[in-house]
């Protein structure tokens, strides 16, 4: 067995506090070298501190590890190119245990003990929602990479942003035209019986209806379920497409049992890759997925038409053409989501530069500068593709990929347009006091 969680990696990663301190000490040594810099510069050359709220333990641990890797790669690239406003960037990681209570404590710790400039990187929705009040009270800009609709719903507060990954409402909406046109008109949804599933439950039917298709059955499955066959009889016989979202470790079982239930005579399958992030698509039992389609934020497998930026991004993060860690083909990444860490950090860099950010006293300026952003062009900073940003709801909108499982790989067969996923804003954060 290999060390998958990075327990013993601790000394190797460049992100730990101890190493950061070492870096600081080295920097201080340089600063004291005669004639090198004047002392007044010591303050402004202190690193910008980013608090990374990571799911190292708990149910989110598989994601947390890859979020850390992507973040490390982005920070390395940003620092190599001169940092932000001429200052190096330092990341401080705290584990939130994928628990909202601990999440709020960790945000408090970043704000008052580490005194970071921002907090960043949370994935799981309940942790984001649990931590948001702490961030708002500490007036701490909080950049999440969660894909939940919670930020754009404007139910959180002015300090919470999601500028690096499209929210799930927009993702679902932009899938509907393709499903209706290519997969089938009669759709049965299978989704987990918790909030992430409810987004799919609530947003897909109207989106499909607009395309002349319909949802004929909705099957909610408790998140703790480990066996699914007993739910399959509820799938109506006339179903043309099974639209499935199963987040959690049981997804392999789900697919395998679906295969045993239907055999080769199955409806079309369309799913969200969230279920299979960090899971090898060629795992035993997943053969059944061959020929089915998936949403992907950023493609796991290298595509023939990949941009130079995408190639550079993959190399920097250290994933091979199959989306697994370079050197360990079994260590599959969470490619569809983790690009959001990379892009978010570049949004932070841009906003800090726009705001002329100097330190925590400029946090309000940073919020306003972020809200003023309008779009992000595709390129090394945004390898997944171009995006627009709505400053009123603190949410970005990008293109989505639909990939087909073919020969044990995911091949992108369709890219949506940004417009496919736009919707009416539900509120306006900019009216809130800073």
């Amino acid at each position, binding site marked *: 067995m290999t060390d998958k969680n990075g327990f013993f990696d601790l000394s190797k990663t460049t992100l730990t506090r101890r190493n950061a301190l070492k870096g600081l000490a080295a920097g201080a040594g340089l600063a004291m070298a005669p004639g090198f810099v004047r002392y007044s510069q010591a303050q402004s050359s202190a690193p910008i501190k980013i608090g990374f709220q990571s799911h*190292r333990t708990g149910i989110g641990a598989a994601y947390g590890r890859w979020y850390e890797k992507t973040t490390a790669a982005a920070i390395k690239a940003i620092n190599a190119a001169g940092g932000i406003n001429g200052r190096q960037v330092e990341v401080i990681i705290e584990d939130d245990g994928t628990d909202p209570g601990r999440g709020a404590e960790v945000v408090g710790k970043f704000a008052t003990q580490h005194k970071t400039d921002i907090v960043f990187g949370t994935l799981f929705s309940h942790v984001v929602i649990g931590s948001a009040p702490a961030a708002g009270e500490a007036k701490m800009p909080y950049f999440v990479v969660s894909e939940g609709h919670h930020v754009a719903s404007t139910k959180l507060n002015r300090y919470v942003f999601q500028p690096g990954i499209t929210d799930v409402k927009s993702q679902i909406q932009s899938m509907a035209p393709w499903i209706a046109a290519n997969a089938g008109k009669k759709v049965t949804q299978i989704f987990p019986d918790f909030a992430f599933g409810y987004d799919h439950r609530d947003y897909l039917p109207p989106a499909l209806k607009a395309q002349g298709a319909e949802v004929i059955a909705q099957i909610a499955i408790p998140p703790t379920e480990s066996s699914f066959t007993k739910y399959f009889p509820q799938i109506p016989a006339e179903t043309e497409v099974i639209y499935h979202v199963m987040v959690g470790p049981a997804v392999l079982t789900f697919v395998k049992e679906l295969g045993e239930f239907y055999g080769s005579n199955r409806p079309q399958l369309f799913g969200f890759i969230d279920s299979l992030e960090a899971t090898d698509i060629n795992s035993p039992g997943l053969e059944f997925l061959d020929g089915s389609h998936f949403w992907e934020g950023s493609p796991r497998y290298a595509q023939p038409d990949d941009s130079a930026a995408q190639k550079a991004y993959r190399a920097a993060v250290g994933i091979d053409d199959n989306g697994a860690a370079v050197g360990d083909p079994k260590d599959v990444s969470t490619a569809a989501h983790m690009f959001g860490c990379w892009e978010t950090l570049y949004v932070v860099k841009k906003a800090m530069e726009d705001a002329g950010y100097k330190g925590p006293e400029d946090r309000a300026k940073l919020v306003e500068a972020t809200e003023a952003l309008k779009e992000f062009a595709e390129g090394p900073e945004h390898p997944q593709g171009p995006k627009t940003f709505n400053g009123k709801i603190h949410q970005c909108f990008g293109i989505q990929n639909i990939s087909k499982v073919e020969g044990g790989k995911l091949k992108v067969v369709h890219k949506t347009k940004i417009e496919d996923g736009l919707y009416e804003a539900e509120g306006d954060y900019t009216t809130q006091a800073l």
Partner: protein
Amino acid sequence: MSEASPAKAYALHLGAIALLFVLSFLLPEYYHGVLARIMVLAVFAMGYNMLFGYVGLLSLGHAMFFGAGLYGAGLAVIQLGWSVPAAFGAGLGCGAVLSLIIGLLALRTTGVAFMIVTMMFAQVFYLAILYFAAWTGGDQGMVVPQPARVLSFGATSLDLTNPTVRYICALSLFSLVLLITLAIVRSRYGRVLVAIRENEERTKMLGYDTFSNKLAAVVVSGTICAASGAAYALLFGYVGSSFASVQYSILPLLWVLLGGAATTLGPLIGTLFMYYVIDVTSGYTSAYLLIVGIALILLVLFFPKGILGSIRQRWLGWLP
């Protein structure tokens, strides 16, 4: 427990409260915020201790009482737009009613069955939160909006999101519950509770209706836990189902065992200790659960009565 040294005991507790008050001016920002949170959670532990420490009933379902306060207060603000004091009252009320119902049912069992039954009722409560996601926000939970978290007295109003106000609110609740606990423990009722813990059969034969006494203890315990939950919702602004999960039923048990069961100040010490063990070790290794696990085992092996319990046993016999 005995008649000796009431003055000493009260002096100790008032001293502890005074110390916490003074600390609010001295502590660095981070520890100031942490202590406010710990005081609220320590109330949860004190509620748990009431039942586990003094009556000897081991429940694995107290997260539902914390959750009743959390959701009672949170939903009152979010869905009904109630003011903070009214919402706090709603939280207490939910806790009291729920604990009365649970007590009436669960107290028909004893020992391991009591553990399992309370755990199952808590699981039902947890699942119900998920099931009624349209109101409760399901697994994601809900934010109590910042503007609503204000305590108004006529013209003046206190912003509960202000760290100082929050600290003082947490300290007030903590002090109140601590003094109530002390009063109960030193009262005749407290003596009966301990007698039930030591030998329920014998207590019955002294003419006590042990069922009613235990029921009252469940309600007091559940209501204190609900107070903690309600305070958590209003002071920290988040209401979520994870607080009603099995894990949050086990936590107060650990806090109480760490600090010392059936000691009035033990719950605070246990909560404090556990928080810092996790906070400090998670800075060095992501495998902090390993350390928590080892700490627990070492604790039961070498300090089975917890920190304060061991101190009482060895040196300070008069500790309440």
